[in-house]
Structure formats: C-alpha cells, structure tokens
C-alpha cells in the first residue's frame, strides 16, 4: 500500500494469506476503497479508513495490501 496521508486507493489484492484472512474477516477486501488518514508517531502504524470504519494496522501489515494502479 503506497499512499500518502489523506490519499485513497482501491484494494486489489493481498500478498499474504494470513493477513488477508484477518482483514477480510474485518470487511476489508478487494474492491473496497481504503484511505490512509495518518501515521502513528515513532515510525508507527497506519490509521486507515475503510467504509466509514477506522482501523489501525502496522506498516508491515499494510505492505501486504496491493492497490489498483
């Protein structure tokens, strides 16, 4: 997931099945729009918004999300 804060993208696929299964369970799946709201301090995780829901994910977890070009 290569987004700058306040940028949006459409989720295309995941590169890690384990994280995919967890994110899909939370309703984050291919085709949904994902917005990076901000980063946490200390090189921390990402505050993202998906369908009106705010979710915190680690950066390495975000790495597994591929967006549509």
């Amino acid at each position, binding site marked *: 997931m290569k987004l700058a804060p306040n940028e949006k993208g459409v989720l295309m696929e995941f590169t890690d099945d*384990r*994280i995919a299964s967890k994110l899909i*369970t939370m309703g984050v799946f291919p085709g949904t729009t994902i917005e990076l709201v901000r980063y*946490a301090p*200390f090189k921390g*995780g990402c*505050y993202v918004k998906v369908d009106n829901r705010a*979710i*915190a994910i*680690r950066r390495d977890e975000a790495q597994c999300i591929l967006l549509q070009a």
Partner: protein
Amino acid sequence: MTSTVQTTTIALVGNPNSGKSSLFNQLTGLRQKVGNFPGVTVDRKVGKMKLSNSQDVQVIDFPGTYSLYPNSEDERIVAAAFCDLDEAHRLDAIIYVADSTHLEKHLLLFTQLHDLGYPMLLALSMNDIAVREGIAVDQEKLSEELGVEIIAFDGRTALANAEIQSAIERLLEQPEHTQQKPFYSFSEAEKEVITAIKADVNTKNDYQALLLAHHQNWLPHLRETQRSSIQQATEKVDFQSLKWQIRETMQRYDGFNTIVRKVFQRVGEDRTFSDRIDQILTHRFWGVLIFFALMLLVFQAIFAWAGYPQDAVEEVFGWASTQLQDRLPDTWYTSLLTDGILPGLAGVLVFVPQIAILFLLIALLEEVGYMARAVFLFDRLMQHFGMNGRSVVALISGGACAIPAIMSTRTISDWKERLITIMVTPFISCSARIPVYVVLVAFVVPAGKVGFISWQALAFMGLYLLGIGTAFVAAWILKKVLKAESYSFLLLELPKYRTPRLRDVALTVWEKVKSFVTEAGRIILIVSMALWFLASYGPGDKMEIAEQNAVEQAAERNLSSEERDNLIAAQRIENSYAGIVGKAIEPVIRPLGFDWKIGIALVTSFAAREVFVGTMATIYSIGSEEDEYKIQEQMAKEKHADTGQPVYTMAVAWSLLIFYVLAMQCVSTLAVVKKETNSWKWPAIQFIGMTILAYLASLLTYQILS
C-alpha cells in the same frame, strides 16, 4: 453424564465494540461471576438471569470476535465453544449483538453461527447513535430475510427488561433449525471433507464438521481418535485452510450485504465527530502529549487521591488493634489477631482505593473509546520491547502500584506481550518504595542544591530512571528469550467516541476489587500471618530470656517506660525466628554490605516494602516509625560489633537503595502475578530473577563504592 438437570445456557456473541458487554451487564447486573476459560487467562463472564416464568438462565459473555476463524487466544475461545462436541457443554441458544450503525460489517459471525443451526436472537445495539447519524434499519424486513427475531437497544435508554425477557423466552422455545437454508454453500472439495469427517465423528451438522477440519490442530477437547480421523479426512483432498477461509468469508459477505443493502439506509454523514477528535488525539505530537497528560492524571489519582482512603483504612485498623489489645488477655491469640491478622487484612484493603481508582479511570478511557487510540500511538515503540501499546498504561500505573497495573494487562490479547508486561512492571518504582528511598536518600545525599534542584531530588529521579531503564532492558531480553507461539497482529478497530455508560464502568471497578480481595488477598493474609509468626516466636525460651535481660538492662540504665518497651522489642526480635533468619542470611548479604539487622528488615519487608522502615525502627528500638530523623540518627550511630566501623557507610546505603529499586520485595504483587498468569511458574521466575539481579547490582555498587 451426571443426573442434575442442566441449566439453560445462552451465549452472548458479537464483534468487538458491538455493545455486547453492555447488554450482558443489563441482563445480569451484579449476578455475574468472572473466572477464566480453562487453561487460559481470558475472562469468562457468566451471569444469571431469571425469566418472567421464573426459569433460571445462565448467560455466557464470550470475547468479541469477527469470525469463527480465530487469530488470537480470546477469539479461539469462541471458536472452541462452538466446535465442542461434548453434550455437557451444549449451548442452548445465541443472542447475537450487532452494531446497527455498521450492519454491513457486523453480520459475518452471525451467518456462521446461523449455519451451525442455533436458535438465534439478533440484538441491534447503538440504536441512539444510529438515529443521530440518520441511519434507518428496516427491522421487519431484516428479521424476515435473516429468519430471526430482532430487538434494538442502546446504552442509555435501556430496553425494557420485560421486552428482552419475552424475546428470550420465545428464543428458548424455538427448536434447533436444521431445515433453514444455510448462508454458505460448500465447494465440492469441502463437501468431500465434510462427508469423510461425519463418517467417523458425530458432529452437530455439516458446517461444524468443516470447522473441525480447519481447527483440528489446536482444538482442546478433541480426542486423539477424532483428531486422527479428521486429519485423514483432510488428507484425502487438497485441503488449504487459509484459501478456503478466504473463499468462505467473501461469499458470506456477498450474501449478507445483499440483504443489508435492502434494509439499511444512511442519510447523514458518518464519523465526522470522531474523525475531528482523532485529528488531535492521534496526532503524532499532540496525541502523544495528551496521552502523557492523561497518564499524569491517572498517576496523580492513584498516587495522591488514594492516599486519603488509604490513611483511613490504616487508621481504622490501628484503632481496632489498640481496642482489641486493651480488651483481650495478653496471650498468643491476641497477638496473632493484632499483629498478624489485622495488619494482613489492612495490607489487603489498603490496596483497594488504588485498584478502584485506576480501574475507574481505565474503564472510562476504554468506554469512551480512547484506549484503542493509545494502542495505535505506542504500538510500534512497545513492539521493540516485545510489548503492546496497552503496556504503556500498565507501566505508568506501576509507578503508583504494581498490583492494579498488572491486573490491567488483561486487555492485552497477545499472551507473550501481556506476559512481558507483567514480568517487567514491578521494576517501575512504586509508591511503597518511597518511604525506603526517603530514609536512605536523606542519609546519603547532602541537602544542598544545584541551581534550584536539590541533590536529593536528583537522586530520587535517578532511582526512578534506574527502575524504568531496567524494565525496558528486561523486556527486551524476555522478548528474545520467550518463544512466540502466536503470530502477532495489530489490525485494531478504532471505535467511535461515545459517552461512557456508568453502569458498565461501575461493574468493572466492582469486579476488579472483588477479585483482588478474594483471590490475591488470601495469599497476602497467609504470608502476613507467617511473617507475624517469624517475628513473634523464637526457638525454646530464648525470647523470654532476651526479654528478661532487656528488663534488667533497662532497670540498670534507668530508662523511661517507653525506652524500656522499645529495648524489649528490639531484643525480642533479635532472638525471634526472623532474627535467626536475618543472622543466617548474613554471610550471603555481607558482600553487599548488609548486616543481620538489615537482613531482618529484608525478610519482614517481603510483606510490603514500606515495612522496612517500621522494622528498622523496631530493631533500633525507636518506638515510632514516623520519626525518620531518629532512624537516620540511629543508623549513623550504628557500628559493627566486631570491627567498630560504622554500619551505614555511603556504600551500604547506596547498595541498599539499589537493592530496593530492583528486588521483588512484595508478596502482594507475586500473589497477583500468580493469579493473572494462572501458574506459580511466572511469579517464581520473576522473584528469583529480580532477586538475583538486585543482589548482583547491589554487590557491584557496594564493591565499587567501598
């Protein structure tokens, strides 16, 4: 099976932040019990409620989870409960709680449970927020589509109990539906696995058989024969657990979202209120600053405000003790009562204000929705040390008292992160260390100032920093040493901010205080009585002889009656078992610069660190422990009997200070660690590890300085 009639059991299930616990509190009130699920320290909340037809029903509040495919220990509890093949553990019906403002995300688990064939009631929560946000849910239509009865409720305008009760009564009359169309249609490979499993294992239905195939490796209650036949069944086909889960989940979402679109309407904009607050509270600078300001408030509350009720507890017990001493005959049982049991009880109750205040504030922050933000802010930083964002709260609270701090780690779902937090929290200097620091720092550090900061304050700060630093180093080492069993995720939902429900907050506080008093309190009381025995009894008639000697000495030296009593107390404790232990450990603590008198204080202050000062006062025959100046004066005068050198040199005092920073001198904390980790192993490791570390550090300090 036993002959007793089984109570009807209802499972309360839902996603995290669904408002499930609030409904649980409303249904059961104070008639709830918190225990552990077998083998793990995940809260198992069970409550009782009486229906209008006077039937008693048991309600289990399961941990919030998104799916029957678990990722953490507490989510596994839910999956295990619904895969349990034992009839004795049967759940009769399910109340499923879903957030009506996020219906499109909250029904996945519902469809899974539905496919298991349970009678279900759907409780839509956050009704008030839904109205405020302009959300309309066509309940009648939803009920028709899902095939279940629906009730709607919210935290404040509580749903009339009568309405819930009659819904539950109707729910319990429903038979298990075996005929209803499942939400999920199996693939050919899945059908094959299910058929193979059902041939050998007696499952409830097809979907449960499929879940067994996915969870065969960890389900706790499967017999080995069952496990091996399930394994054989999955080996026949190309079984790919993760891929199949993803396929199933996607299909379920497609299915229920078609329904949700028909019944769900949103007019207004969502979340703008929470988003605005988060711009500040999760800001990389302001967010961190506000967090520390909040923690300062928490710290101040435990540290200072708890002081008043604590003093009251001590005063009441002190008064009771004098009253009893005056009225009862001067025998062993009076002494046991006034010097063993009452101080033990006081030692338990004195922590109650701190525990109550900390959990009041933590529960408020949790209810409002703030805690998830704190985790987001500090997750990365704490990850370096094998901990979790929530660990920050425990570590800071540990500055007041390790006991509520360790109890607060229950909210950390990853076992390894939680364990590390529990293990290192006692390194943070708690308020009980302060009296010890006060006496010793004043003794070794001159009263002068550098600029406007006094040397003594700097020394104090140094001691605190030493504790904090050690906690992080220890955490880092534990992170490397402990094997991680689970794959750690963050993936945390940040719920909307909302006003806290006072009933839920009050119940949390009540439950924490109760569990501390009943469980940890027992151990603390037993140890206080053991310490009383050690300090009041000696072998044979040695203590009587010592007392007689003291009386004679006092007469010779013409001492006042108060001085005489102090001298007797000092001579008695020297000849008690505690004195013998102190003398026995002297060779071991001599390299640290400690003599047997300090040894006695080390032994007795194991009950609680602040006892150190009181014991020193007794040993040096100073009546009142309040008089710190007198203790210092006596310490300065104290000389080694053999060499005539002063006992308390700079080196000894610093060595003792370092020892108190690092050593696990608190039986109450160990009792709580035992309770929280559900084993004696971790408190034992903690005690031995911290004591060895304290010993080595003191040794080094003494050898360098002397």
